[in-house]
């Protein structure tokens, strides 16, 4: 700022009218540039805070447990090793594992990975399908009590999940489905109020001409839906499926209650258990970070491939 002033006054000249305009302009331009630089610095800081934990996760996962306390300020892995990944993927012997600061329990993240994939996939496929069908009925078909039922379904969004979680646990237990895939997947399988709301908005916005034409040709409602409406709405449907998949992958509370058994344990629950498993009290930090990385990786990959969709969807899903 001062330099601009200096340039105009120290030069010794009293600026004529047009010159003073450009001085003010210059002032504004410099101020704007300072703002811009400042803004970029802040944004850079935000990105740093956002991304550093991921880097730190990676760095620790390639470290040796014993070396961690001594090298806690080292930005590179402390005593680089792949041992943590070996432990976590069940490729390490029990005695090796104990020696490296891990636990003796057989950990096998391949199984948990598989479980997460099964749960997330089944949930996504069926939830999206059934919610789309219901959304179509609400948007396009006319039937008695349609708006009342829709309001009821929406009301479900406002109820805190814990209220239905406890009795759902008892229900799943009574059905004998504790510690099965069915038990984990069932409550969310058939519908999601948000999904129905989301898709109904889209279906409302589609032009009716093609459907009318098909109706005239004698097509049944199911054929219209599956052959015409779904392909036309593929963008929002796939976006919804993506969001559902991510949500199901990251779910913790419900799988914690009903899916503790090894065969059905999902990654999030496995992480919680892994944290507490070492015999001498301190967590196996390197192994834990390796495990979290494995848990986070699939979602990051999907995002890298299909992220554009998710980012673009964030605009209208929240506001309309």
């Amino acid at each position, binding site marked *: 700022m001062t330099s601009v002033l200096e340039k105009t006054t120290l030069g010794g000249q009293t600026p004529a009218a047009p010159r003073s305009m450009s001085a003010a302009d210059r002032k504004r331009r410099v101020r704007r540039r300072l703002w811009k630089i400042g803004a970029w610095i802040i944004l850079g800081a935000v990105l740093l805070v956002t991304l550093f934990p991921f880097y730190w996760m990676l760095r620790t996962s390639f470290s040796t447990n014993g070396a961690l306390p001594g090298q806690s300020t080292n930005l590179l892995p402390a005593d680089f090793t792949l041992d943590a990944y070996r432990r976590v993927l069940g490729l390490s012997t029990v005695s090796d594992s104990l020696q490296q600061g891990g636990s003796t329990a057989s950990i096998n993240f391949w199984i948990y990975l598989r479980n997460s994939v099964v749960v997330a996939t089944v949930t996504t496929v069926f939830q999206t399908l059934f919610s789309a069908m219901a959304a179509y009925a609400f948007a396009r078909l006319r039937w008695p009590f349609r708006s009342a039922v829709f309001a009821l379904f929406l009301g479900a969004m406002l109820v805190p999940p814990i209220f239905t979680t406890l009795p759902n646990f008892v229900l799943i237990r009574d059905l004998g489905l504790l510690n099965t895939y069915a038990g984990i997947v069932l409550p969310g399988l058939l519908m999601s109020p948000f999904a129905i709301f989301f898709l109904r908005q889209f279906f409302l916005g589609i032009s009716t001409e093609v459907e009318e034409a098909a109706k005239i040709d004698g097509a049944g409602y199911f054929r219209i839906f599956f052959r015409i409406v779904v392909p036309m709405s593929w963008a929002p449907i796939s976006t919804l499926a993506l969001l559902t998949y991510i949500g199901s992958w990251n779910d913790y509370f419900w799988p914690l209650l009903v899916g503790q058994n090894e065969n059905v344990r999902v990654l999030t629950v496995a992480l919680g258990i892994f944290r507490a498993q070492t015999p001498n*009290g301190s967590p196996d930090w390197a192994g834990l970070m390796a495990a979290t990385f494995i848990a986070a990786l699939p979602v990051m990959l999907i995002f890298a491939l299909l992220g554009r969709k998710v980012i673009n969807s964030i605009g209208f899903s929240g506001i309309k």
Partner: protein
Amino acid sequence: MKKQRLIAAAMAAVAISGALAGCSASGTDSGDKVNLSYWLWDANQQPAYKACATAFTKANPDIDVTVKQFGWDDYWSQITTGLVSGTAPDVFTGHSSYFPTFVEKHQILPIDDVVKADDINLKQYETGLTAAWTSGKKLYGLPKDVGLAAMYVNSDMLEKAGLTADDLSNLEWNPKDGGTFEKTIAHLTLDAKGVRGDEPGFDKSNVAVYGLGLNGDGGGLGETIWGQYAESNDWTYLNEKGGKPHFNYDDKNFLDAISWFKGLSDKGYMPTLEQAVSGIGQQDSYGAGKYAMISEGSWSASTLFGYKDVKSIIAPLPIGPSGHRASPANGLADNVAVTTKHPEQSKKLVAFLGSKDCQSLVAKQAVVFPAIADLSGATKKAYEAKGIDISPFLETVDKGDIYSSPSVANWAEVNAIMTPAMQAYLGGSAPLDSFVDANKQVNALYN
């Protein structure tokens, strides 16, 4: 078309045979192979019990045993979910704090019938242990091990401080000035500049090595943390008053002991609670040379002696104002879940696990002390082979300087009150008399 029909037929065949296989595999107790599941939480004991499981199957070829381990934090929630859903393990390691609740809710089976049938000698166990597993005149488990506490000391640091093992054999503590025990701790404490805790110029805000470690708040039990001090100060957790338990957390002897204990942190000889609960546990801190002495259980001996950079010796707990030491003596036992589909076989397994055959295998591994009195000699030898002298532990038992932890119903509720109270006091956010109110709440649970 033919191909499709072939495939369909093949699939049908597979399906039918699968169904038939399913039918016959629904195990009955009539001579078909039975598979029992057995759970424990101590990873160190897993190899020993796996060996026992193999021995059991050798003696009973029609019973297979699968041993599974879960970390303590998750062990009990898994057991609960299992009991609630009918998928609990057939046999599992029980703990005295959960025992009364499981009995009250009818979740474990008594084993008196197999004790009679196999003529098991209950006197072979150390005194008092079977009583802990008896309720309403029924026995629910056979004591399998005894957990005791003592001091583990870094022998190099001891030498550098000019002390010997003998100096540690008769330490005394008292709530007023800590006695010889506190003096020793202070002497072993080193600040960043190498000044000892009992020397002038000691900087308590910059400690490099603590004389005594801390393992957390201990909740309502304080096992191996503060229990040994409170109990050697003529105090006991509870008394029976009119058939109901009456807790004594408001007793002056308890308050004095805890106040002295916290004082060690305040003076810089022991880490603060914040430090104790952070990312490195007490054992690893000891192994990293941050603590000169720690009070720990006999079950951790092999882990503690396994640290490469630390040479340890075991010293007895200090003698308290009562004139005695006070080590916890808690026996674990295996329980049979009520949800088991094979109660006969499960009880057989429990009988075996508590027998000399199995416990001598456990003794050989030198990870815990078996509850069978006769095996103490073999246990001592096994530990000696690992370079560990467990005489301080055994002497405590011989002298009878032991106490058992409270065994009451609703212990989870007591802990839910005492844990925050202890955290608040040790962490410095609540005054000493907050225990009076906490004790009132605890006793209100039983009225």
